[in-house]
């Protein structure tokens, strides 16, 4: 049943073993380069600049004075090896440069050579290397084999976070003129149109109207999906994939039904029609801030009182951890609510209050497990309690279904394995990496399938959903076995509010 491809899908291991290293198996040219117009839109040189070596070193020097993480992480690694077997890309590909510490070392060797005493005088001794074209190519290739999932940082005795290193590396690559096509194209689209998919306002309005009709056909209730409604109470910021990708769209329908059921006044924004913020993936404070400001501006313009984010992993990390810093202060919003809130927090609160009527039996055709998305699990939280990001989504799921089973403990919560497509790698030119990188997650899934007859994998991340829909078939599963949490809510919710919410 497994899908055919020009590379081999790794075989699932009967029991977890630490792979034997295979040097150079993932060596290559990396993903496609960004085109000149995309580079320009983001303010980067359109091609590799002539004095790239100097530019790269200058940028590295600048970043070292701007980011404590980079400075401390490059200095403190003791090469203990604790992180070496923790990266899903290493487990799936066996390329030693995908071991977190080896990935860091690609940058560290240059840091040592040019910025430390030992590396300047005794390069051989401490593994310091000149910044050659070969090293630059390795950066481009291997820093685009890191999904910035932070799993390695959980296990490092000093919390060294390879994501921080790979963000810095990608920023350096952008500044010397070799950006990655997928990320930079998307950011350019956000600036031009407002969302990653390049969906303009009229098309968005059309889509939403179509969805309203679908919901009415199905339920007989006029559930609305309002766009650009000034004075609404809640601004919903959701990944644009929610507007038409499967299974994302069923999640969007779920949010709309929840809002409808409690009579909330809410709206989407065509100006900020994107929760995702790819500025983080390329390590650019500047771009991350520009994209965040769109949300601030939309909230102000629409005069809303609360901001709620839809299901998206890295978007939630940026929202939870950075939005207030980058685009605040949000003092014009209602102070009783955190800024921003996650849709799961919102639904969870309503469930706690007994405000939703949920029929668990509606999901009896499914046996469900939950995939903790890395950016939610290790980059953010929910509900003002440590670990809320693990508890709340599970509580929402359990309130909506009778059959929930967690995967093995070392593959969930903060030890969760990445879906293999995060961090700006969700592109067809990295298909081999994506398929191999998901191996540990597929093994954990297979185990609950065998042990508990699990049929569906629920997630709260647009990237995870797209990635799973694409790669599940490579491992002998069906693409529709991945679902949104709010799809479960959507199935279970009994709409008692038959009046349509009016636009205020």
């Amino acid at each position, binding site marked *: 049943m497994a899908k055919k491809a020009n590379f081999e899908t790794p075989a699932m291991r009967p029991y977890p073993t630490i792979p034997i290293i295979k040097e150079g198996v993932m060596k290559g040219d990396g993903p496609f380069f960004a085109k000149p117009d995309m580079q320009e839109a983001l303010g980067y040189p359109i091609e590799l600049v002539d004095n790239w070596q100097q530019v790269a070193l200058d940028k590295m020097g600048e970043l070292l004075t701007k980011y*404590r*993480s980079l400075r401390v992480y490059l*200095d403190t690694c003791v090469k203990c*090896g*604790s992180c070496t077997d923790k990266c899903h890309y290493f487990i799936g590909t066996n390329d030693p440069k995908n071991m977190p510490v*080896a990935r860091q070392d690609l940058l560290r060797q240059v840091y040592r050579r040019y910025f430390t005493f*030992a590396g300047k005088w005794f390069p051989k001794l401490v593994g310091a290397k000149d910044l050659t074209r070969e090293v630059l190519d390795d950066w481009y290739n291997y820093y685009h084999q890191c999904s910035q999932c932070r799993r390695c940082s959980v296990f*490092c*005795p*000093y919390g060294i976070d390879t994501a921080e290193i790979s963000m810095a590396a990608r920023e350096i690559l952008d500044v010397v003129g070799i950006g990655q096509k997928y990320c930079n194209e998307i950011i350019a689209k956000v600036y031009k149109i407002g969302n990653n998919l390049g969906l303009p306002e009229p098309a968005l309005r059309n889509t939403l109207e179509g969805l309203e009709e679908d919901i009415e056909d199905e339920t007989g209730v006029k559930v609305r999906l309002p766009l650009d409604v000034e004075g609404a109470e809640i601004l919903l910021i959701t990944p644009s994939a929610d507007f038409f990708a499967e299974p994302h769209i069923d999640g969007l329908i779920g949010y709309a039904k929840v809002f409808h059921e409690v009579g909330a006044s809410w709206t989407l924004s065509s100006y900020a029609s994107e929760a995702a913020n790819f500025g983080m993936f390329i390590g650019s404070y500047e771009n991350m801030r520009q994209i965040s400001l769109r949300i601030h501006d939309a909230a102000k313009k629409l005069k809303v009182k609360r901001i709620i984010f839809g299901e998206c992993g890295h978007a939630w990390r940026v929202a939870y951890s950075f939005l207030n810093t980058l685009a605040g202060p949000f003092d014009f919003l209602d102070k009783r609510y955190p800024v921003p809130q996650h849709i799961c927090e919102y639904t969870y609160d309503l469930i706690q209050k007994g405000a939703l009527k949920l029929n668990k039996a509606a999901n009896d055709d499914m046996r469900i497990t939950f995939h903790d998305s890395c950016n939610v699990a290790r980059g953010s939280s929910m509900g003002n309690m440590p670990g809320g990001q693990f508890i709340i989504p599970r509580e929402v799921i359990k309130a909506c279904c009778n059959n929930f089973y967690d995967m093995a403990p070392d593959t969930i919560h903060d030890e969760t394995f990445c879906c293999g497509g995060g961090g700006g790698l969700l592109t067809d030119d990295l298909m081999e990496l994506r398929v191999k990188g998901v191996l540990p997650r597929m093994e954990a899934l297979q185990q609950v399938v065998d042990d508990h007859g699990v049929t569906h994998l629920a997630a709260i991340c647009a990237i995870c959903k797209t990635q799973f829909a694409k790669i599940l078939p490579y491992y002998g599963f069906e693409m529709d076995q991945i679902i949104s949490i709010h799809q479960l809510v959507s199935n279970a919710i009994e709409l008692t509010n038959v009046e349509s919410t009016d636009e205020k």
Partner: protein
Amino acid sequence: MEFWTVFYAVSFYFATFILISGVVYKIYQYAKTPAPLKVPTMPAPLTSSGVVVRILMEVILFKSLFRSNKWIWLFAMMFHGALWIVLLRHVRYFVVEPGLIIDLIQPFGKYGSFIMLFGLLGLFMRRIFVERIRYISSPSDYLMLILLIAIGISGILVSFVTRTDIIQFKAFMLSVVCFQWQHFQLPEYQIPIDAMLLFHLAAVMLLMIIFPISKLLHAPGIFFSPGRNQIDNSREKRHIAPWAVKKFETQQKGN
């Protein structure tokens, strides 16, 4: 004044100067470099006292390492735990009246060195035999362990085999520490001429000198790791670095 006495006294001042100034400089550098975004590895504590607990768990118990790899943890604990005890034991060479605590740990310190050595050998074996760790090791990583092993073995030999004149060594050391250089004229304040002791001291001074320019910076570094020392409060509090503020301002002017 004998040559070795002067040589070791001067080297000791030099090594101490490098160690202290180097580490102070690195700490200053870490402290000065801003952390412009909240990036603790979640779940993170919600309060600053929670952060103190988190860091202490890492520094004393190596909690993350324990979750990750029990073998590395075991050897690391043996080495570091014994190292602290051995170091404390050495206090008696530097102060006139070491006090009760230091007296009490003397026997532990004496045998602690064997545990330290065992831990170091375990780490060394892993570095040689585990393919992944061999792949990420540079010559300096092996040499660092060899240096520590050499310090450990020579220390053991000094206290169990060659039985150096500790009274005289203490007299020498106290004169160095208290800057009583006039003592060096007198024979009872000379450094004992015992090859093993001289080797042990030279190796320790070498370690002190390379401390601030090597991976030994993990000791101060762990306290500055944003992954471990940040509070999870980004929704309540903005967290703006000075360089980012400047950027905000210039942008507003530009608008």
